[in-house]
């Protein structure tokens, strides 16, 4: 199918092929929820990301084939939404909310603490591939600011220097 993907997209997944078959069955089932198969692009990308940690070129091509769209139509979706990682990230993705309510409650200090302790800048991944640090826009938990989300898990709320320390330590073990 026409529609090439940009060269900087990581090309392939490093995973056994049987996993991909499982994904395809799931995506086929999800596609029945919609009047058009294209609607299942986002759910499919979520499944691929959950499986591989990010969305590679191969993933996009597989999704495209499965849903009868051009690869570039999958790419335009994958590249638009902030939560889709089109490059590999660390095992623990630390996403610190720095929007207004969290900022007012000291989110910038927590972010600096993480940068210092992990010895990386925001937006980077540690050398051992364990942590990726980024900021996110409002997580919708302003009453318990400052807030952080690790991967897709439940939020870490009311962060203090101490609780953030504890979280990092538990993730390191």
């Amino acid at each position, binding site marked *: 199918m026409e529609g090439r993907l940009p060269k900087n997209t990581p090309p392939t997944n490093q995973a056994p092929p049987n996993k991909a078959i499982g994904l395809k069955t799931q995506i086929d089932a999800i596609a029945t929820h919609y009047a058009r198969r294209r609607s299942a692009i986002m759910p499919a990308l979520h499944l691929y990301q959950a499986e591989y940690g990010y969305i590679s070129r191969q993933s996009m091509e597989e999704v495209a084939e499965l849903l009868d769209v051009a690869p570039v139509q999958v790419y335009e979706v994958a590249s638009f*939404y902030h939560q889709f990682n089109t490059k590999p990230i660390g095992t623990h993705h630390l996403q610190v909310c720095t*929007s207004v309510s969290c900022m007012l409650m000291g989110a910038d200090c927590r972010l600096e603490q993480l940068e210092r302790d992990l010895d990386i800048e925001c937006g980077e991944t540690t050398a051992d591939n364990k942590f990726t640090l980024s900021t996110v826009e409002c997580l919708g938990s302003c009453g318990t600011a400052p807030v952080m989300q690790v991967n897709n898990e439940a939020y870490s709320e009311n962060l203090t220097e101490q609780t953030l320390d504890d979280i990092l330590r538990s993730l390191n073990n």
Partner: protein
Amino acid sequence: MFEQTLLKNINVKDANHLAVYRAGGGYEALDKALQEIEPEQLIDLVKQSSLCGRGGAGFATGLKWSFIPKDSPLPKFVCCNADESEPGTFKDRVIIEKDPHQLIEGIALCCYAVGAKTAYVYIRAEYSVGAKILQQALDECYQQGLLGKNILGSKFDLDVYIHRGAGAYICGEETALLQSLEGFRGQPRLKPPFPAISGLYASPTVINNVETLACIPHIVARGAQWFKDIGSPSESGPRLYCLSGRICNPGVYELPGGISLRELVEQHGGGAPNGKRIKAVIPGGISAPMLPESALDIAMDLDELKAAGSMLGSAGVIVMDEDTCIVKVTQRMLWFFHYESCGKCAPCREGLSWVFKLLQRIEAGDGKSGDIEELERLSGGIFGNCFCPLGDGAIMALRGAITHFRDEFINHIDKGCCPNGTSLSSTSFLPSQA
């Protein structure tokens, strides 16, 4: 003491389970509607209640439903907007996580009223816990005959699916949400046609906010008049207010519509911590222009807030105390809008980038005389010229700050630093995503 309706179950153990919800009278409204109320009557009932959308725009819900054509051969759809992303807003999450059946019952009633057999809940990706809880609740409904074919022995069929977003504020805009549901980038569509005529898959579609839909079972169970009697004449019904920022008791509060901002912030929120003075308040998510402390006696009412140059929006109230640097808050707000701009139209995409850079330099102490005038000039070029309300919201936020706190901007430029000396971060911060 005001009777809690929308939040009545949040402290009930296991309220997210069907058995607990039904023990408290849950799904009786749906049963009643399916047995006794014609779809047209249900729309009229919602109209009579004067319920207005709780997502931000405040459009009359019954009226919206009545726009769905009765004679269309196309399938009809209902989309629940659970893409709650307006900074300062976190009320829908409480309903989804603590009382999901209240939402599902509201969705079912809406679908019955407009003749939809399929509904989607568009939930933001970050609410992964909420999505799991909601899916469990949907599964229970299918098992118990509350969703699927012949619901509660009636001839009404309904399927409800969850569609997870992936981190895009713009998808809270209803046509961007539809684009996203159809598997495209979340970029708004031109209106008209409005979704009621040509929405999802070009079919008639109702899009309602979570809290709006959660009100429906109560209106059916207790009547339109009961709903209208709560709140002020222009703000019917109970409302969920979110309190955050520099405030003693942050959280989600259910109170009558139209209460005063001062009562909300001081009596319920307990004012600013450590005896500090409140400096400014954002009344309805960051798109709503901030108001100075002197304006707090205003009612949380669509018309009054509009007259004061702000808006009720999502009722997400953010409190700033005397130590807050307004320039820094404004810079952060405009970063948000700039970052979340979908890129479809130039005034928003290019204009907000420019505005953000100016604010960044003022905040960093590098502002030049004339920068405020330049911000105002740019605002004039952006406001009213954008494809959707995102760009306008950004400019409203900026204008609110400059209108009420112009001196702070001038001071930053003249002194080359924050006169408060209270910036929370030592570095000039630029958020960055992985």
